């Protein structure tokens, strides 16, 4: 591996690590379940992204062939991260007092509270 590539990989790893740390720090710092949900869903995406870039570059240097697994990991991350956040938010909504949520502006209530049928 050339020096320039090593520097690039190290930089990607350090930036990724910093963003992962910020996301975890956000969990500690922010207040309330909903605010805390914002930190790990967002600040960590670049963290994981940078780590994947480092992994792809290392793989490229080691085998001289592009590794496409990182592309797949990114795609699956983009598909699953919003779902986890949605489940956590919906669970949290069950304990929120009804007056705290804004009205839907439509005839039906939010699906969490809407009576079936």
């Amino acid at each position: 591996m050339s020096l320039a590539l090593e520097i690039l990989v190290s930089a990607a790893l350090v930036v990724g690590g910093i963003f992962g740390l910020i996301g975890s720090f956000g969990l500690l710092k922010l207040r309330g379940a909903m605010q805390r949900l914002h930190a790990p869903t967002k600040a960590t995406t670049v963290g994981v992204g940078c780590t994947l870039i480092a992994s792809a570059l290392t793989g490229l240097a080691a085998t001289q062939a592009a590794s496409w697994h990182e592309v797949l990991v990114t795609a699956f991350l983009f598909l699953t991260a919003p779902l986890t956040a949605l489940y956590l938010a919906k669970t949290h909504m069950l304990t929120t007092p009804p007056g705290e949520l804004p009205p839907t502006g439509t005839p039906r209530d939010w699906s969490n509270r809407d009576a079936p049928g």
Partner: protein
Amino acid sequence: MIARLIPHPGLSAFLVLTWVLLTNSVSLNTLVLALLLGLAIPVLTASYWPDRPRLRSPVRLLCYIGLVVWDVIVANFQVARIILFMPHDQIRSAWITVPIDLPSPEALAMLAGTITLTPGTLTADVSADRKALLIHCLHAPDPDATRDDIKQRYEARLQRIFA
């Protein structure tokens, strides 16, 4: 005949691509298996796609994905700044309701996912008639501007992508 064998050409192509990426090699073996999977899975799962929307413009979809990836990167820096430098009492969190006019559930799911991934907003719920989304903002001094931004930036584009 072809329409019955390949009910969902886009999904078939996507599955073939995913399998080739998973095995990380383009050989005859992987291609045959990829084709088998690409043909079998859409037929087996056809009943889960009763009224799938037509993709009006794949090019626009690619542009949309590019825009979202860019916004996700910007969002990371914005949220990192709020976490690191903003005192507790200045963070204005808010619930907002965004009225939605998207015909297909698939487009709505895509919009909800986009909102969760992008700057300081998180989809929490959808109204039972699928006409409004409940969104939590980490820091929204002006909730109306956030709502208009979501409608213009993402919903308008999705309306043009899905017929």
